[in-house]
């Protein structure tokens, strides 16, 4: 009897969005008709999203990739003996030799796309729980020190040192502490959190458990955006599985530590990604931003000391514990240590997830990895760091991906999302949208943001209609919002606006343009 051949067809939502389920069932049917024994594993995505659905076949040489596969290709793939890695126009060779993938430094994403995300055996066979096992043997202070030594900074956008935050929570005295995972991932152009939760959810669970052990918290919440229904199902199942296997519960991993988790869905409000708004939402209220202090680390969820960390921050903890702080800190540049899962998106030929050490330039990502625009038209603008991030022109593309280097160009790294625009983009419209988005998503607590954003939309409309003199008003408004907003929603909305005006002045100089066209 022939043993069945392993075929991987991703279950990642991006892969599903271009037909991965249809491809998986076409393969299953074709195999059955041909009497071929196959085992179809639904893995996460390797992150080469333009190649999805990317089907992999396990051979004695390694996993061979085929993509992008449609159901119509399936019979020709069998004809070409793809189960033995046969020649076919869609054959991409060994997955791990594809340059886009090969040249990455995958630490946080080491298992994503490789394993069956819901198989605990697979997880453990690929090094899962090594970090938690170490943590269980360490004191809380030693774990926190390890995290601090790694240089890890929060990946949610603000780049705050994770070790310092944990130390504050460790030092707080309380009958109850919480670990809250910020999985609101609201920035356009970002999907790293989603891919990790769908592709390797046990890593996040392990990272949260380590955080619990470190600071003495027994309960965790994952606050997940409701726009991620697939990640929700995967997390629910992973938590059930972890609980059954006693990696969650009253004695995690056979230790004396208790830790358990709940997933909660957001409800379509961008501001809920801001940590204090998120906590209000978890408490069941309107998600109005809280004034700081008190810090959430001291008075967080239900008034108790709380760690709020992004998915990427927490999912990197197991690697740091397992491999040591120094091994992590050896990657990166300056004060940005380790790796950043970069998300390349928008009008780009080869979009996807690229985990690289800090320091790679924006240009390398767009040109070497991305291969230019999807439309084939010339590149014009890049927005880095989500809706509150700056628009950069070509002349700034040699900036390295590093918190300080981006700030020195009046930009920000945010959650590592990069959105590419071709030459059809109108930066005045993008600036208008930045205000419009802020007006829609503002929590309404402070006037500069609530009223300022609405004034910004009205004023941009005048500029777009040709009243260029109104740009001075935009400038004033931006100063006010920057200086007087309570949180970064109002405080950073001027970043996309002012960067667009500074770097793309022609788009704001409407009147002469219109006359020239007449």
């Amino acid at each position: 009897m022939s043993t069945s051949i392993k075929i991987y067809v991703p279950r990642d939502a991006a892969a599903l969005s271009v037909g991965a389920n249809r491809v998986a069932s076409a393969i299953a049917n074709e195999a059955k008709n041909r009497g071929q024994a196959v085992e179809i594993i639904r893995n996460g995505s390797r992150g080469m999203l333009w190649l999805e659905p990317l089907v992999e076949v396990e051979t004695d040489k390694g996993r061979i990739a085929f993509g992008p596969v449609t159901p119509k290709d399936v019979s020709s793939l069998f004809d070409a003996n793809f189960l033995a890695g046969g020649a076919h126009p869609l054959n991409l060779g060994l997955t791990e030799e594809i340059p886009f993938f090969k040249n990455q430094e995958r630490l946080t994403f080491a298992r994503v796309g490789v394993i069956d995300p819901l198989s605990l055996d697979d997880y453990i066979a690929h090094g899962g729980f090594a970090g938690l096992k170490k943590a269980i043997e360490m004191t809380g202070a030693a774990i926190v020190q390890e995290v601090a030594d790694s240089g890890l900074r929060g990946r949610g956008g603000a780049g705050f040192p994770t070790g310092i935050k944990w130390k504050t929570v460790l030092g707080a005295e309380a009958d109850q502490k919480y670990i809250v995972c910020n999985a609101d991932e609201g920035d356009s152009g970002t999907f790293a959190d989603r891919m990790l939760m769908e592709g390797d959810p046990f890593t996040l669970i392990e990272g949260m458990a380590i955080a619990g052990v470190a600071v003495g918290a027994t309960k965790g919440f994952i606050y997940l955006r409701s726009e991620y229904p697939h990640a929700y199902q995967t997390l629910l199942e992973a938590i059930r599985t972890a609980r059954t296997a006693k990696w969650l519960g009253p004695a995690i991993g056979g230790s004396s530590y208790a830790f358990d988790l709940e997933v909660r869905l957001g409800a379509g409000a961008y501001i809920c990604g801001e940590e204090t708004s998120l906590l209000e939402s978890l408490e069941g209220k309107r998600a109005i931003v809280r004034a700081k202090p008190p810090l959430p680390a001291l008075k967080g969820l239900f008034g108790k000391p709380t760690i709020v960390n992004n998915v990427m921050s927490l999912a990197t903890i197991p690697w740091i514990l397992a491999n040591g702080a120094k091994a992590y800190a050896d990657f990166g540049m300056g004060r940005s240590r380790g790796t950043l899962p970069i998300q390349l998106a928008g009008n780009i030929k080869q979009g996807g997830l690229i985990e690289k050490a800090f320091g790679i330039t924006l240009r390398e990502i767009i040109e070497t990895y991305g291969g230019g625009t999807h439309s084939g038209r010339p590149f014009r603008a890049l927005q880095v760091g989500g809706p509150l991030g700056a628009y950069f022109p070509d002349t700034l593309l040699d900036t390295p991906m590093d918190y300080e280097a981006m700030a020195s160009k009046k930009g920000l790294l945010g959650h590592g999302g990069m959105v590419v625009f071709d030459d059809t983009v109108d930066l005045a419209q993008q600036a208008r949208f930045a205000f419009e988005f802020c007006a829609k998503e503002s929590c309404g607590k402070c006037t500069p943001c609530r009223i300022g954003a609405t004034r910004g939309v009205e004023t941009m409309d005048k500029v777009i209609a040709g009243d260029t003199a109104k740009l001075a008003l935009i400038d004033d408004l931006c100063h006010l919002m920057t200086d007087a907003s309570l949180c970064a929603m109002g405080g950073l909305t001027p970043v996309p606006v002012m960067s667009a005006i500074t770097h793309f002045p022609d788009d704001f100089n409407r009147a002469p343009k219109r006359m020239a066209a007449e």
Partner: protein
Amino acid sequence: MGWDDAVASSIVNEYKHLSGATLPILHALQENFGYVDKRAVPLIADALNMSKSEIYGAITFYHDFRHEPAGETVVKLCRAEACQSMGCERLVAHLKDVHGVEMNATTKDGRLTVETVYCLGNCALGPAALINGELVGRVDEDLLDAVCKGQSHERMAG
């Protein structure tokens, strides 16, 4: 299914033990009825020992919760920056100009609701949409034509 206070109460009771139960309850109600009727406000307020204004305030704060029933098909079309760079606003114009379908509204025949969302995490394969809970990438006019006519399309789930 139309709104039913008895069913709504039992849903509220099922979730009220959770800490910070407001959102789980609202999601469960919308999952069941397709929207959250204003009659839910006193039910939830009673169960959670919160004021009616707090509950009303929460419902209206979050974009997800509808105040009226949705159409049979619900399309959540992403209009955030990455999808803008791939022409999602062209699709919005197409829906309106060719099909008379307005954003954030339900068609008169009750068949179709199209809503704006900001990012579905599918930003490398935009424009993106969630169609009845299924994520679709590289959405184009052809696919939306099928949706508007109530037809299936080879690139939709199933």
